[in-house]
C-alpha cells in the first residue's frame, strides 16, 4: 500500500507496475472466485458489445415460434406470449442494461469525485454545503427517491440514468472527501505545493490519482447496485418501455405468467440480472482484497 501513496517517479513505474500485476495474479490464484468473476465480466462485456450480431432471432420479431413455448432446442430459453425468442431478448438486453448502469455510475463518479475533492481539500463552507446536500439525499430511501425523480422529471430512459446517478452521488462524494482530506497535508502534497503547483493542480494532479484505488472498489460494488436499481425502476414500469428488451421489463412481463406456470419468462432474464450483479459484487470484493486487505470481511 505504501508504494501507491507515494508519487511514482518515472524510474519507479516499471517495477511498481509488475509487482502490482504479480499481486493481482496472487490474489486471483488465492481466490478462484475472483478469477471466475473476471471471466463472467468478460462474458457480459462480450454480450453487450456483440450480442445483437450473435443472437439467432430478432429480439423484437413476434411470431418466430409458437407463443409461450417451453425451452427447447430451437428456442433455448423458450418463447414469450408474443412468440418472441427469450434467449435473443435476454442477450440483446445486456447492452441496454449495461449502458444505463455504466452511464449512471460514470456520472455519479465524476460529479461525486469533484464535489468530494473540493469538500475534502478546501473544507469550510464548500464542505458544509456538500455535506448537507449529501445528507439530504441520504435522508430518503434511495429507491423511493429515484422513483420520485423519474416521476417528476418524466418517464424516459435518460431520467432513469440521472435518477440512478443522483442516488449514488453521496457514496462517491463521501469517499472522495475522506480520501482527499487525509492526504491534504501529506508530505508529497506539500512538496507539490512548494514547487509552485496551483491548488487545483495539486488537488487533481497529485491527490486525486491516489484516491483512485479505493474509488475503483466503490465503482465495482456500486455497479451491481446501479443495475439492480435500474432494473427495479423498469420493473415497476418506469423508463424503458416495451417492446424494448431489458431485463427488468422482461421480468415484469413474465410476472403475469408465473402463476400459470410459464417460468422461463421470468427465470432467464432474472438469472441474467442476478449474474451481472453477482459478477460486479464479486469483482468489487476481489478488488478490495487487492487494494485494502485489512478491510476484508
Amino acid at each position, binding site marked *: 500500500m505504501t508504494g501507491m501513496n507515494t508519487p511514482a517517479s518515472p524510474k519507479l513505474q516499471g517495477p511498481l507496475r509488475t509487482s502490482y500485476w504479480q499481486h493481482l495474479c496472487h490474489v486471483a490464484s488465492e481466490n478462484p472466485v475472483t478469477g471466475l468473476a473476471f471471466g463472467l465480466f468478460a462474458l457480459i462485456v462480450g454480450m453487450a458489445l456483440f450480442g445483437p450480431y450473435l443472437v439467432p432471432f430478432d429480439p423484437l420479431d413476434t411470431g418466430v415460434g409458437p407463443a409461450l413455448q417451453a425451452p427447447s432446442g430451437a428456442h433455448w430459453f423458450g418463447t414469450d406470449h408474443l412468440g418472441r425468442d427469450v434467449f435473443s431478448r435476454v442477450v440483446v438486453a445486456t447492452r441496454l442494461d449495461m449502458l444505463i448502469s455504466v452511464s449512471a455510475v460514470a456520472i455519479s463518479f465524476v460529479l461525486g469525485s469533484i464535489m468530494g475533492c473540493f469538500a475534502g481539500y478546501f473544507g469550510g463552507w464548500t464542505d458544509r454545503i456538500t455535506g448537507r446536500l449529501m445528507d*439530504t439525499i441520504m*435522508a430518503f*430511501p434511495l*429507491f*423511493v427517491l429515484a422513483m420520485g425523480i423519474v416521476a*417528476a422529471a418524466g418517464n424516459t430512459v435518460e431520467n432513469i440514468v440521472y435518477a440512478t446517478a443522483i442516488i449514488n452521488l453521496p457514496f462517491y462524494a463521501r469517499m472522495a472527501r475522506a480520501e482527499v482530506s487525509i492526504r491534504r497535508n501529506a508530505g508529497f502534497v506539500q512538496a507539490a505545493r512548494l514547487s509552485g503547483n496551483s491548488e487545483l493542480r495539486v488537488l487533481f494532479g497529485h491527490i486525486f490519482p491516489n484516491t483512485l484505488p479505493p474509488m475503483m472498489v466503490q465503482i465495482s460494488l456500486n455497479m451491481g447496485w446501479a443495475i439492480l436499481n435500474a432494473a427495479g425502476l423498469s420493473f*415497476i414500469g418506469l423508463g424503458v418501455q416495451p417492446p424494448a428488451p431489458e431485463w427488468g421489463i422482461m421480468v415484469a412481463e413474465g410476472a403475469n405468467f408465473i402463476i400459470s406456470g410459464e*417460468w422461463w419468462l421470468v427465470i432467464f432474464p432474472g438469472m441474467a*440480472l442476478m449474474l451481472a450483479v453477482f459478477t460486479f459484487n464479486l469483482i468489487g*470484493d476481489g478488488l478490495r482484497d487487492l487494494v485494502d486487505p485489512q478491510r476484508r470481511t
Partner: protein
Amino acid sequence: MPPMLDKLRKVAFRLLQAVPTVFGILVVCFLLTRALPGDPAAYFAGPMADAESIEEVRKTLGLDKPLLVQFITYVGDLAQGDLGMAVSTGQPVISELASRLPASLELTLGALVLSFMIAVPLGVLAATRPNTWVDHICRFLVTAGVSLPTFFTGLALMYVFYYLLGWAPAPMGRLDMMYLPPESVTGFLTIDAIIAGEWEILGAALAQLALPLITLALFTLAPIARMTRAAMLQTLGSDFVRTARAAGLSGHRVLITCAFRNALLPVVTTLGMVFSFVLGANVLVEKVFAWPGIGSFAVEALVVSDYAAVQGFVLSMALLFVALNLLIDVIYTLIDPRVGEEV
C-alpha cells in the same frame, strides 16, 4: 448528572438533529412537485384547457407567486395534512396513504424482525468459526443475497411454493377472499386477529404474509449478517475479551455477555442503510404480490401519472425513514452501556 437524565438529554439532542433533515426532505419534495414535465398549471388544468383557464389554475394553485411563498404555502398545507387529491381514486392522498400504511408496515417490520432473527445468529456463528464451512456458507449467502433482485426472488418463490408445491395461497393481497378481516384495531391483520381471538384468520393472514416476508427478509439478511460477522470478529479480537478469557470466564459467557453485547452496537447503527434498502425493496415486493400497501398504491399512481399521489408517497416514505432512524438512535442511546457512565 445522573445517568438517566444524561441519556434523556442525549435523546432530546438527537431529536433536534432531525429538524434540518426534515427541512431538507421538504425542500426536495417541494422541488420535485415543481419539476413536473412541462407546465404544472397546464397539467392540472387538463388537456382541454385553453390559455385563459391555465392562467386561472396557475392563480388558484399559487404558481404565479415567488418560489419562497409557494414553499411556505406548501409546508403550511402539509402541516394540515393536505397532500392534494389522488386523481386515480378521487380521494385525498393522505387518507389513501393512511389506510394502506399498516399493510406496508406489517410487511416491512415483519421482514426486519425475521431477517434479524436469522442474520444475527448466522453472523455470530460465522465469526466464531472463521474459514470453516459455516463461514463460507455465510459468505456465499451474503454475496448472493445482495445480488438477488427482490422482484425476481419473489416471483421464483411464488413459482415454487404456489404453482409447483401448492403450499402458499394465491398471491392476491393480505387475506383470502373467503375470510372477513377482523375488527381493525392496529391495522396489522395478524395482531388484530390475535386480539379478536380469530385463530383461523390469523392462520390465513400469516399464509398470505409468508412469501412476501421471506422475499424481503432474504434481501435484508445479507447486510445484517455481514455487519454482525465483522463486528463480532472485531470484539472477539479486542482486549476486554482476551481479559475475560484470561480471567477464566466460560467460553459461552465470554461470547454472549462480553463480545455479543458490544458487537450489537455497530450492527444497530448500520440499520439505517438496511432501512433504506428495505423501504425501496418493499415497493417491488408489494407490486409482485399485489400487496395493498402504499408501495403498490404509488406504482399504480405512477402508471396513470398521478403526480400528487406519487409525491405524497415519496414524502411519507422519507418521513418514515427518518422516524425509523430516530427510533434506532434513541434505542442505541438507551442501550449503550457507555453513555452516561463516563460523566
